[in-house]
C-alpha cells in the first residue's frame, strides 16, 4: 500500500451490551434459566456425595444426615432444587436432536424419535433408582 495513504477511520457508534440483556427477550431469559439451573444439577450431585460420606462414617452420622434432610426449610429448598432439576433436564433433553444426528438404514432419524429415546432412557434410569430405593432384589 502507498505509505501516503492512511486507513479511513469512520466515527463508529458501538452499542454496549447492557448487563440485563437476558431480560430483554423471553428466549434469552429461558436460556439463562437453563444455564443457571445447572447449578442445581451440581448441588444434587454434591448432596449425593455428602450422603455417601455420611454413610461411610457410620450409622449415626447417616441418621444425622437424614434428620437434616427432613427439616422443613431443607425440604422446601430441595423442592425448589427439584423444580430446577426438572426444568434443566426437560430443556436439555428437548435440545438433544440438534446435536445428535442419528441414521438408521441410511435415513436420518426424525427429531421426535431422538427426543423420545432420551425421555425413555430417563424413565428407565428413574425406574431403576425407584426399584433400588424400594429394596431392590432383596
Amino acid at each position, binding site marked *: 500500500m502507498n505509505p501516503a495513504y492512511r486507513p479511513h477511520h*469512520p466515527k463508529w*457508534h458501538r452499542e454496549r*451490551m447492557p448487563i440485563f440483556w437476558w431480560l430483554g427477550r423471553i428466549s434469552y431469559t429461558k436460556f439463562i434459566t437453563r444455564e443457571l439451573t445447572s447449578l442445581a444439577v451440581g448441588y444434587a450431585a454434591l448432596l449425593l456425595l455428602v450422603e455417601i460420606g455420611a454413610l461411610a462414617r457410620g450409622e449415626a452420622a447417616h441418621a444425622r444426615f437424614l434428620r437434616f434432610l427432613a427439616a422443613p426449610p431443607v425440604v422446601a429448598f430441595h423442592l425448589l432444587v427439584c423444580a430446577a432439576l426438572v426444568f434443566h433436564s426437560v430443556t436439555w433433553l428437548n*435440545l438433544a436432536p*440438534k*446435536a445428535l*444426528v442419528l441414521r438408521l438404514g441410511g435415513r436420518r432419524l426424525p427429531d421426535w424419535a431422538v427426543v423420545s429415546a432420551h425421555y425413555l432412557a430417563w424413565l428407565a434410569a428413574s425406574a431403576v433408582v425407584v426399584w433400588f430405593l424400594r429394596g431392590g432384589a432383596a
Partner: protein
Amino acid sequence: MPLAVTTGSTGTAGAAGATGTPRGPAAAAATATVGATATAGATGTAGMAGATETIAIEVQRYRPEEETAPSWQRYEVPLRRDWMVLDGLNYIKDSLDGTLSYRWACRMGVCGSCGMMVNGKPVLTCATYLSALAPGPVRVEPLRGFPVIRDLVVDVRDFLDKLKSVKPWILRSEDKPLADGEYLQTPAELAEYKPYSMCINCLLCYSACPIYALEDGFVGPAAIALAQRYNLDTRDEGAAERLDVLSQHEGIWACTFVGECSTVCPKGVDPAGAIQRYKVAATAEWWRSLLLPWGKASRSAATGDDRGRSPSRSAAAGKEQAEPRPAGDERSRGR
C-alpha cells in the same frame, strides 16, 4: 451480502437535509437515489394526501458528523396493506427525509442487505409487514452487535474476516482432470448440506446472538454453519483444515446454545444445530486423538459424517492437517 448503500444526498441539498429538517416530496425527488427510484413512482403519486391511515416509524439516526450518540427520529408513513417496513423506509427516503441511510437491494428476501432491528427483533425489513406491526410506532434500529457507520448502516467487516477464516469453499488436495467429468453426488448427499447452503449472509443470526455481542473473537453462527456446509459436502476435503479454526474456544466452544440464531434465520438454516453437531464431532475427534494418537484425523470425525467414504479421501484429509496453516489465515480482531 449487503450490496448497495442508500446514503444521504450530497451537495447543497444534502447539507440542508443534514440538519434533520424534513423536506417535501419535491426536494426528495431531486435527491432520489438509484435504489430508491424503484418505489418512487408508487409512493410519490399517492403521497400522504391520498392515505387515509398512517403509521409512525421511529428510526434510530446516527450522523457522526453532527452527533456523538444516536438519536430517534419519528416519521409518519402511509399504512398500506401490502407495504413492508422497507417500503416505509423508502417512503421516508423519497418523500420525507432524503438524509436517511440504510442498505437494501432486492426487496425479495434474497440479497440479505436489509436486515435491521424492528421493535427489538432482527428481521429482514423487506419481509416484515408494516400492517402486522400496527398501530405502531415501529422502532427501527441498526443490527445489534455491529458498529454503526451511519443511521441504519452497520460495518460487517468483522463478519467477512471471520467467514474467510473458515474457508467456505470446496477444498481439495488434488483437482481431478476435467476429462474425468464432474463430481457426482446422490440426492441424499446433497440433502445433507443443502439447508446450510441457503444462508444469504443477512447477519440476523449474529444480531440475535448475545455471545457475538459479548465476545469479540466468536466466529459466529453463519460462518460456522457455512463451514459445516462445506464439511458435509462429499466433494470437499478440507474438514481437517477448518477444524483448526472451529475447534478453538472462539469457534464452536464459545457458543452456549442460546438457539436464537436459528429462530431468527429467514432461510431456515439452523446455525445452532450446525454448531452443536460440530461440538459432538469435535469431541469425538478429541477422544480419537487421545486414544489413538498414531491415527490421522478422519473426515468423519471432523464432520460428524458417518457415511461411507473412500480410504484415499481420509488419507488426504490427514495430510492437509499435517501442513502448517497459511500465513494469511490470521483472524482479524479489529472490531
